[in-house]
């Protein structure tokens, strides 16, 4: 199997950008990623484009050809991807597979989303879904995970809030993040309650934004020299339907992380920096546990210890994560991987993880039968 490398990555600012369209956001990120890689659009063999809300909010479908057309890529195969919050990382996964199968030398992945419009309601699973029609929406499943985590492991409200405090501390160092003002536990807990026990600052904001990555074969990466980042593993799994899902020992999350570690030949102790899908404060606590950064049930105490904070031994979500950078759904999975690339190259500025050699990006998306619909874990190294 051929090796895959990342030779270019770029992310736009995240937040409301009313003057931008999905296509213009995607174009901006893709052009910057190509420029970062030092390749021109004529050498792109294949493109994957991820977007979730275009069809629902604007009636736009099959947008990838418009985005790639806008950066001068024509005739090459373009594939449009929707896989909830893992749309971008699923697109990346397919790009890696194309390189590993020796089907292409240069593949561009673009995730772009425009959500900051008044017609976006509470994000759920749609009208044909029993749970959605009975009140299941994005925060609801996670709020129940939080309540159960408190019940089984003694996790506290202060520990949940510490995730947001840590997130804002990192975001203050990321000029492209949406919420950059530092906060504290008292302020997070005093905010309006969204779904008990999660207050507003523990729920990620929607955003407009895009991110793009150039994936290359070993041959094509050679010209990129020492800036090329190796893709050691990219794993995509789906959730399962069981009679009684355990919502605080998240089987799909644990299984996917373990598969990625196994494929990459590394373990949790080898990871210098991680991005994870912190859509809610409780999400990050569960992902610490799945990634093996702490034992099952210890996620609350792990964040409270400062281990995942700036200067900590295991920095998590240095970009500010979904909670502070913002969550333009299909851009998120690509942006997480781009963030890890910056750290491995030593180009992450004020939030740089010292001497980062191995990084992980974890993402999950959708809600079905008490599980996620999809989960991705990517391991990168320099």
């Amino acid at each position, binding site marked *: 199997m051929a090796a895959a490398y990342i030779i270019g990555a770029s992310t736009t600012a995240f937040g409301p950008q009313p003057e931008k369209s999905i296509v213009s956001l995607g174009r901006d990120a893709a052009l910057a990623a190509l420029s970062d890689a030092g390749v021109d659009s004529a050498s792109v063999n294949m493109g994957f484009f991820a977007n979730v809300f275009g069809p629902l909010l604007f009636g736009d479908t099959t947008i990838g050809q418009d985005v790639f057309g806008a950066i001068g890529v024509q005739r090459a195969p373009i594939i449009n991807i929707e896989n909830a919050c893992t749309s971008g990382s699923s697109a990346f996964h397919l790009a890696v597979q194309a390189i590993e199968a020796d089907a292409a030398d240069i593949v561009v992945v673009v995730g772009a989303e425009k959500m900051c419009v008044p017609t976006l309601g*509470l994000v759920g699973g749609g009208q044909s879904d029993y749970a959605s029609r009975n*009140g*299941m*929406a994005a925060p609801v499943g996670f709020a*129940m995970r939080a*309540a*159960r985590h408190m019940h089984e492991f003694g996790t506290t409200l202060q520990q949940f809030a510490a995730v947001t405090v840590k997130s804002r501390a990192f975001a203050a160092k990321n000029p492209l993040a949406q919420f950059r003002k530092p906060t504290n536990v008292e302020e997070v807990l005093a905010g309006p309650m969204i*779904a008990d026990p999660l207050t507003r600052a523990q729920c990620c904001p929607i955003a407009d934004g895009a991110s793009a990555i150039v994936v290359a074969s070993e041959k094509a990466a050679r010209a990129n020299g020492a800036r090329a980042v190796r893709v050691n593993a990219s794993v995509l799994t789906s959730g399962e339907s069981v009679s009684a*899902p355990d919502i605080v020992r998240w089987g799909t999350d644990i299984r996917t992380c373990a598969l990625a570690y196994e494929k990459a030949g590394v373990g949790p102790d080898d990871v210098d920096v991680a991005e994870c899908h912190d859509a809610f404060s409780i999400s990050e606590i569960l992902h610490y546990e799945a990634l093996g950064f702490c034992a099952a049930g210890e996620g609350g105490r792990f964040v409270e210890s400062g281990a995942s904070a700036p200067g900590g031994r295991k920095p998590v979500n240095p970009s500010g994560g979904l909670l502070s950078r913002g969550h333009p759904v299909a851009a998120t999975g690509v942006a997480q991987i781009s963030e890890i690339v910056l750290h491995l190259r030593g180009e992450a500025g004020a939030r740089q993880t010292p001497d980062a050699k191995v990084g992980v990006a974890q993402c999950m998306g959708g809600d079905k039968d008490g599980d996620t619909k999809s989960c991705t874990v990517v391991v990168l190294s320099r």
Partner: protein
Amino acid sequence: MTAARVLDHVFGAPPIAGGLFDVDASGAPFLMGGHCDQCDRYVFPYSESCPACLSGMKHVRLGGEGVIYSHTTVRTKPPYGLPQPYSVAFIDLNDAPLRIFALLDHSMAGGFRIGDRVKLKVGVIGHDGEGDPRARGYFTLKDSR
């Protein structure tokens, strides 16, 4: 008179979806789901084929009682015209090995605890997404506190 008409009459509005719940001769509501004879798997809501072995599933009664495994109260603007706030839970059913998602009694939203014993009721709650009222199943405390 069709079956749907009968349920309209019993519950005051058409159910949010067919096949979720019904009432017994005494008027007590119960949930309906599926059971696989091949691998003894239960599902709720009903599914034509077993998610484990793909065999055809039988329609079965799942009872109307259970225990709260986890819960939350949603305080933002609700979907489908549900009450604000509204409470929901994962409930472990007494009569089948199933942990199901369900609405809780909104008249005591926020007043539930993990481990509470609950029983099913049916009432007109919220609408179908287009503004037409719908009957939904919800769980309330089995014993008074």
